[in-house]
């Protein structure tokens, strides 16, 4: 009904934009997708609709923008109240789901990013931190899934979206570092879940190609190193 009114501003490489798109797919909501080019200057639309953070994703319902991926997922769950529910119904289960999603954004994703931008010398420490996070998530999965296929149980839920959206980048890291982050040996539950997640009907069309993402990752690293070098140059030339 409101389908023709729904727009998502995102990028193919953004895990955060992926969360929003998966949520809309789960609710069978059609939407217009507008791709922002991450390597070029930010579009007028992005700057106007998210002036505070200037980041994707942005969801539009009509002309009203909603920003911040996890907030958008809550919003989607609250507007389109048909099953399946993305958040659990019990308040304690909801609190647990929110806890782990917040953990992903506050701790796990920054650790992942540190590995991606790390120098040779930092890489080992950054990777160790990421792997600690993976162990925590393995435990969280066992607790939340209650023996079912997803964090959300039988269906994809809030934590599946929070963690699963990072899987492609995790695979990129595995490729770059030639280390396994998720494995049958060390994280059997997560390894099995990762396959279920990436092949799910609501996910597979927006799950990025890992080789393409790896190339993009290299470009981002180059951009980041250039910016870091420029910043270092300015700090050494001022008092």
């Amino acid at each position, binding site marked *: 009904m409101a389908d023709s009114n729904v727009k998502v501003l995102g990028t193919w490489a953004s895990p955060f934009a992926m969360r929003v798109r998966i949520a809309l797919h789960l609710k069978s909501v059609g939407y217009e997708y507008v791709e922002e080019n991450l390597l070029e200057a930010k579009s007028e639309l992005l700057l106007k609709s998210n002036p*505070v953070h200037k980041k994707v994703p942005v969801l539009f*319902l009509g002309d*009203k923008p*909603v*920003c*911040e991926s996890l*907030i*958008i997922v*809550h*919003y989607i769950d*609250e*507007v389109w109240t048909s099953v399946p529910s993305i958040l659990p*119904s*019990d*308040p*304690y289960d*909801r*609190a647990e789901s*929110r*806890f782990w999603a*917040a*953990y992903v954004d506050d701790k796990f994703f920054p650790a992942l990013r540190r590995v991606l931008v790390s120098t040779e010398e930092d890489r080992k420490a950054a990777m160790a931190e990421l792997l600690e996070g993976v162990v*925590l998530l393995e435990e969280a999965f066992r607790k939340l899934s209650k023996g079912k296929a997803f964090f959300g149980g039988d269906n994809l839920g809030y934590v599946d979206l929070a963690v699963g959206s990072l899987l492609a980048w995790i695979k990129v890291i595995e490729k770059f570092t030639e280390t396994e982050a998720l494995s049958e040996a060390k994280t059997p539950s997560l390894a099995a879940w990762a396959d279920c997640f990436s092949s799910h009907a609501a996910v597979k069309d927006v799950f990025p190609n890992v080789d393409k993402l790896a190339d993009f990752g290299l470009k981002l690293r180059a951009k980041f190193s250039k910016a870091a070098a420029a910043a270092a140059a300015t700090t050494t030339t001022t008092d």
Partner: protein
Amino acid sequence: MASSDGEVKVLGTWSSPFVMRARIALNLKSVNHEFLQERLWEGKSQLLLQSNPVHKKVPVLIHGHHTISESLIIVQYIDEVWSSAPSILPSQPLERATARFWAAYLDEKWFPSMRGIGMAEGEDARRAAVGQVEEGLVLLEEAFGECSKGRPFFGGDRIGYLDIAFGCFLGWLRVTEKMSGIRLLNETKTPQLLKWAHGFCSDDAVKDVMPETEKLAEFAKMIMSRVKGAATGTGKS
């Protein structure tokens, strides 16, 4: 399955704005609870380490056999369990998203920038930090206008989620104003927020848990000297 039965305890400290959020929410819902204070200089308690092993931080809400961490998650939990009493989150999805957005902004951007004023070294750095905080307050003043729609609080006629998320920082904001000599909330740039702050602090759900500015300022000085003492290796444990 959402039962409000079971003992309710908040594990926290008197000076933490995040802990205050949990207590205000329980007060709004008229939920009797016990406040268990962490002793700040004695290392983290067993109870804290067991109930929040991932972050090892306050606040923790203990409700029967459940433990819930992260202040904004706790506030939402309280709102959902004690669902008959006044609602803390707005009822409309878009208003809820807006309240959540600004609460996240406060935690990720604004409060760190305010803490940055106290930690800034040198006049230039301090001025830059103050500038950041003031910019944020201008944004929040606008947000207040949109959310309150002419009523006294972000939540409307009563304190709501965003009032709690922001109001908990008022003690520290006043300490910062006192120590820097700068009026961050003022009639020129943030007239609505200035008025809101008075209303918030005098609300029944808030006034007994908002620390006195003097006490907080003394506490701030004590932390600063410990931090500086530790940095120069002369701190006493």
